[in-house]
């Protein structure tokens, strides 16, 4: 008897536009002690499935089919019966631990509450139980963590606390809904290793919901791929990842940037995904770096005052960026990588003159930006643009796309008048793969990937020479990311652009960038040629970042996917 058996699960939502089908009939089973991954992009229905299993769907959802846990059906059970199962039968860990932990209670109190749920033990004993579990999940300073408030802990710590809370009841099945998406690579690997060890030690089965194939490869034994509410492929992880039978799976896997992919095609015409085999039929402007640098940063420092005080000694400051030097040559893609809190976003904003620096200089095309007056600054802005990470918040929700594209064109003098500005807006929007009729819409009408394209179009409309991209694809699905990265490479070639590319994912950096600088605690610890990270990275923290990359079963030896995908079992494998 399977631990969990899902048969023909269908979930529909009664929305404003009628019935919307989130899950269209899936079958899945999980045996005791297994780790199964459910992978898919946004909209595939994987989270809905997880919610259905745990009985957490909102009231507007109508569910059909069978979900049986240890033989007994879950759907249709009253809430009281489900409460019995949750905790010791099925437990769940969510993506964003800050909103999953109650901000008004200390961590210790929340753990105590869970420990005493259905178990008649005293407060002190529950606290001890909680401390033991915190140690099990790798937290050393249990006393401090138990007394802390959720907002005082880092993201990684909070997620460990969540896992402790979930695992405390010794559940037979743990559902993890993208628990590491919001975390850095090194933390992600630790958390996944933790889940693996809990699985081994307590025989706890894990259903891992994710969109990251690296996670799938590292953690799971079996995987099911979801697309638009259906499971298109399932099987043992190794088999599915190396020899996918369905075209969609193959397309997704091909779109994942992997370390070592650059070596296959290091030219500026390289592309991710199935189009990787085709040489881009674009006139290649020579991207040989010019001798003198386009952007030169020297001694850049930014200190924030985080605690003001009348007493000089009590003023606390934070050196977000300390004494940074680097140069970017024309036509180059210069990468900047670091964990969260390393100061890369701050550095990007300093360079783009969105923040005032405390000291140091930034020179663009030979001119010192600090000496600029208002008119020169405007001219600078036309040549130097910025693409933000979060396209949802970087677009004004109350203005149409057309307005948001035309305004900068007029303001920075690229357009002579309104009709000309509109023309430029159409050009820019078509460059990024959207159409003119999209200009009349508001940002909320678009998907995440489309909004990011609009953000890029907005930067392009003023015809810049240099674009700073602050983690432009971090929030996007795998295939959308591949599209955007390919688009950026194509634009670089056709428009002769230079990029400062910030990311936290090493494979993306290796694929995109010519050179990369590694940041840590506000400083650049090393700069090297990005084409082969393994060979060039020297500093221990950089190597730690490299080790944290979760790789798929090796595809680097594969020939580019020009042939038909169906018979992928004959694809070459290099261990």
């Amino acid at each position, binding site marked *: 008897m399977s631990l969990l058996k899902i048969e023909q699960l269908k979930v529909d939502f009664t929305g404003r536009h009628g019935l*919307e089908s989130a899950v269209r009939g899936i079958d899945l089973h999980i045996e005791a002690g297994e780790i199964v991954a459910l992978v898919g992009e*946004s909209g595939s229905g994987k*989270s809905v499935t*997880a*919610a259905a299993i745990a009985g*957490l769907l909102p009231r507007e959802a109508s569910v059909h089919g069978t979900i049986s846990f240890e033989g007994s059906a879950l759907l249709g059970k009253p809430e009281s019966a489900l409460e019995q199962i949750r905790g010791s039968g099925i437990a769940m860990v969510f993506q964003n631990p800050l909103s999953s932990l109650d901000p008004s209670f200390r961590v210790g109190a929340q753990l105590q509450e869970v420990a005493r749920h259905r178990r008649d033990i005293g407060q002190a004993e529950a606290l001890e139980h909680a401390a033991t579990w915190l140690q099990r999940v790798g937290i050393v300073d249990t006393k401090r963590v138990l007394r802390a408030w959720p907002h005082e802990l880092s993201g990684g710590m909070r997620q460990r606390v969540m896992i402790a809370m979930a695992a405390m009841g010794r559940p037979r099945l743990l559902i993890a809904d993208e628990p590491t998406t919001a975390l850095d690579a090194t933390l992600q690997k630790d958390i996944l290793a933790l889940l693996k060890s809990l699985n081994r030690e307590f025989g706890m089965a894990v259903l891992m919901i994710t969109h990251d194939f690296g996670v799938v490869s590292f953690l799971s034994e079996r995987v099911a791929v979801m697309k638009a509410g259906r499971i298109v492929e399932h099987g043992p992880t190794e088999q599915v990842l190396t020899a996918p039978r369905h075209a969609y799976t193959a397309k997704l896997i091909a779109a994942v940037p992997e370390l070592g992919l650059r070596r296959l095609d290091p030219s500026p015409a390289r592309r991710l995904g199935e189009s990787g085999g085709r040489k881009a039929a674009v006139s290649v402007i020579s991207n040989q770096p010019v001798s003198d640098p386009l952007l030169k940063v020297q001694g850049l420092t930014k200190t924030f005052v985080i605690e003001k005080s009348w007493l000089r000694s009590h003023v606390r400051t934070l050196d977000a960026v300390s004494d940074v030097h680097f140069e970017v040559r024309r036509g180059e893609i210069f990468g900047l990588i670091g964990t969260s809190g390393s100061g890369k976003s701050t550095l990007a904003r300093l360079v783009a003159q969105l923040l005032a620096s405390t000291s140091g200089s930034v020179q663009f095309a030979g001119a010192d930006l600090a000496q600029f007056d208002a008119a020169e600054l405007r001219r600078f802005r036309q040549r130097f643009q910025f693409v933000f990470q979060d396209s949802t918040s*970087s677009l004004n929700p109350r203005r149409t796309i057309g307005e948001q594209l035309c305004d*900068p064109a007029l303001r920075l003098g690229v357009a002579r008048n309104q009709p000309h500005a509109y023309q430029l807006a159409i050009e820019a929007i078509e460059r990024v793969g959207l159409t003119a009729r999209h200009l009349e819409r508001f940002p909320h009408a678009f998907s995440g990937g489309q909004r990011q394209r609009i953000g890029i179009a907005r930067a392009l409309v003023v015809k810049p020479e240099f674009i700073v991209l602050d983690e432009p694809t971090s929030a996007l699905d795998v295939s959308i990311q591949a599209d955007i990265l390919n688009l950026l490479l194509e634009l670089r070639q056709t428009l002769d652009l230079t990029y400062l590319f910030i990311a936290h994912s090493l494979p993306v950096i290796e694929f995109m960038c010519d050179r990369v600088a590694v940041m840590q605690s506000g400083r650049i610890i090393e700069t090297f040629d990005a084409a082969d990270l393994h060979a060039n990275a020297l500093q221990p923290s950089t190597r730690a970042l490299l080790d944290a990359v979760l790789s798929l079963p090796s595809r680097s030896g594969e020939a580019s996917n020009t042939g038909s995908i169906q018979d992928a079992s004959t694809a070459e494998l290099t261990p």
Partner: protein
Amino acid sequence: MPPSELVREKVYAEACSACERFAPSRLSAAATRLASNGLALCGLLFILLVFAVSAAAPWLAPYDPNAADPVLRLGGIGTPGHLLGLDAQGRDMLSRLIWGGRTSLVVVIPAVFGACVLSLLLGLYAGYSRSRVSAVVMRFIDILFAFPMILFAINLATTFGPGIITVTVTVLFCALPYVTRVVYAEVRAERDKEYVEAARALGASSFEIVAREILPNVMTSVVVYGTTLIGGMIVFLAGLSFLGLGVQPPTADWGRMVGEGARVMLLGGGHVATLPALVIVAFALAFNRFGDGLRDVLDPRD
């Protein structure tokens, strides 16, 4: 947040990301949305009705609102010839109600509208600017909050005479601090958002950012809050009129009618106060609903 809320958000994001959104022209979309909001439509219709009736008062009212018939005074609803009865002086209630809307329209609506415009200016400036002056502005608003409005009205009346202008200005200053506070808070929240940063990266000056980026985002609150205030300001006007600062007797004014009618409530003249009170409530509700409807229309989110 309860787990089901977390899941709901994620689940809706997943479910809706695949849906195509169509964009008919903005105006027709706005009109459709307003039309589908039944209550808002009723509110708008009632407001328009009041406007029409007040404008047509000279032809609509059966009697002169100030003509008194002392014999029939305090006649109840259904007195032959007087559909809604008569007040303490024997004046026809229906005619007075028809004429009574004029002051509310002429004083309260322009005053609240003026307050909204002024508060937008003040709030946008104070919220966006990081200078000391913005703090001074907000302290001035605090003073307005604390200032007893009746005193303000009396002072104004002493200087300028108790006329329409005085009352309008008083109502404006009464409503001003409330709306300004709301605008200020919203602008402060929007100021740190990324699209403002993006606008700066695209060369926008502070003025351009405030006028073109932030203003559209705070308009909705102003509209909703402003319309909500109308009902309260009508009552405030009644208070002023009662003290002799606003509408002078024998002019018909809803609020004043309530005040005068209260005195005769126990003498068999319950309808004298209740009828105008009901009309004020209906008018305020109509504006509330309409304001809500406007907010849904102006907010481009689904």
